[in-house]
């Protein structure tokens, strides 16, 4: 009897879920570990599926903490473009967080260097 109860309870666990694709970063501009002759005018993030960017920070080598970049795109897209104010020469790390159509929270960092003129 108890075996049947437990077997029935186990069977109850077999319920169908939902189907969603899995998203990942395909490429970025500036590319990771790139060296640039001048400041980029925008950051571009290309994802495999439409993605919503939820946070973007930039920190220069030597700064105590990063700064949040405002004006992030509100709508999901597989190609996200974010305008950037001119940056002084130096090494930078950009931190990003994004949520794909599959609601998977992703994060990553990009490093690039702007050489002094």
């Amino acid at each position, binding site marked *: 009897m*108890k075996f049947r109860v437990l077997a029935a309870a186990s069977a109850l*666990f077999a319920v*169908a879920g*939902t*189907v969603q694709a899995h998203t990942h970063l395909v490429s970025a501009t500036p590319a990771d570990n790139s060296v640039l002759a001048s400041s980029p005018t925008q950051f571009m993030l290309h994802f495999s599926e439409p993605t919503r960017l939820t946070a973007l920070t930039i920190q220069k080598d030597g700064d105590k903490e990063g700064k949040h970049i405002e004006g992030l795109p509100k709508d999901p897209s597989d190609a996200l473009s974010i305008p950037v104010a001119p940056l002084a020469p130096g090494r930078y790390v950009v931190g990003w967080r994004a*949520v794909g159509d*599959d609601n998977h929270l992703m994060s990553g960092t990009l490093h690039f260097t702007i050489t002094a003129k």
Partner: protein
Amino acid sequence: MPVDFLSAFVRSLSFLALFQAGGVAIYVALFGRQLWSAAAPVRRIGFLSAVAGIALVSMHYSLEAARMAGELPGAFDPSLQRLVMDSPMSAAWVLRAVGLALVAASIRNQSKLAAAIGVVGAVASIQAFSLVGHTASHDAHAWLTALLGLHLGVVAFWFGSLLPLTIVTRRESAATAAALVDAFSQLALWFVPAIFLAGVVMIAILVRRWSVFAQSYGLLLIAKAAGFAVLMAMAALNKWRYGPALATTPAAAIAFRRSVAVEYALICAVLVATAVMTTFFSPEQ
């Protein structure tokens, strides 16, 4: 990433509370009528862990917007809160909270209907795991949902029964304790291996390349499997050595409780490892 670590910590605690509550609900449905002196404290554990579980899953849910922002103040960002609300996470949170509420509402009632409601609550709170993460997004979602449900359901039964079994050896007569431990062991013998089997099949479906076992996600999977192997050894010890001695040897109860305590701690470690794994890593990383 302090907010990520906080989220993983809260998620870990919510796992422990949820599986404890669900497991007690299943245990009480199976063996509740055989409990006398242990009945009240066992049901109290179920109630308290269900209430704690509701608070913890809600806290974890509220941290998701903060994780999206990468900082705690993000929890108060209306646009991020809306994003979380529109995601399957909200459905999972509701299902977990409602499931745990059903457990809390029914666990102290000794009727068969209350026991059934408790089991439904346990199933609901555990099945919520299939609404989010890689199980939900995979092409083989139907298979993964069934496998995950079986995997987690038996984990809940096993983990959630350990504290009640400890209480039984303290509060019930030696003969009753021995009978209850034996009854649990008979069921566990058939169902607990399903945890490993379901886990192996899920790994085969989710993991696309062997190199993942050299990375963080894979290493944590290996650690879980190793923990499970140790747990099976301990469970065998309880079933074939300490359990049968409970009826005749007073000292067996102490040895049994010590062994169960180690089992409990190991399962906690596996649950915490799973919470960390699913917070920070994925089969694709």
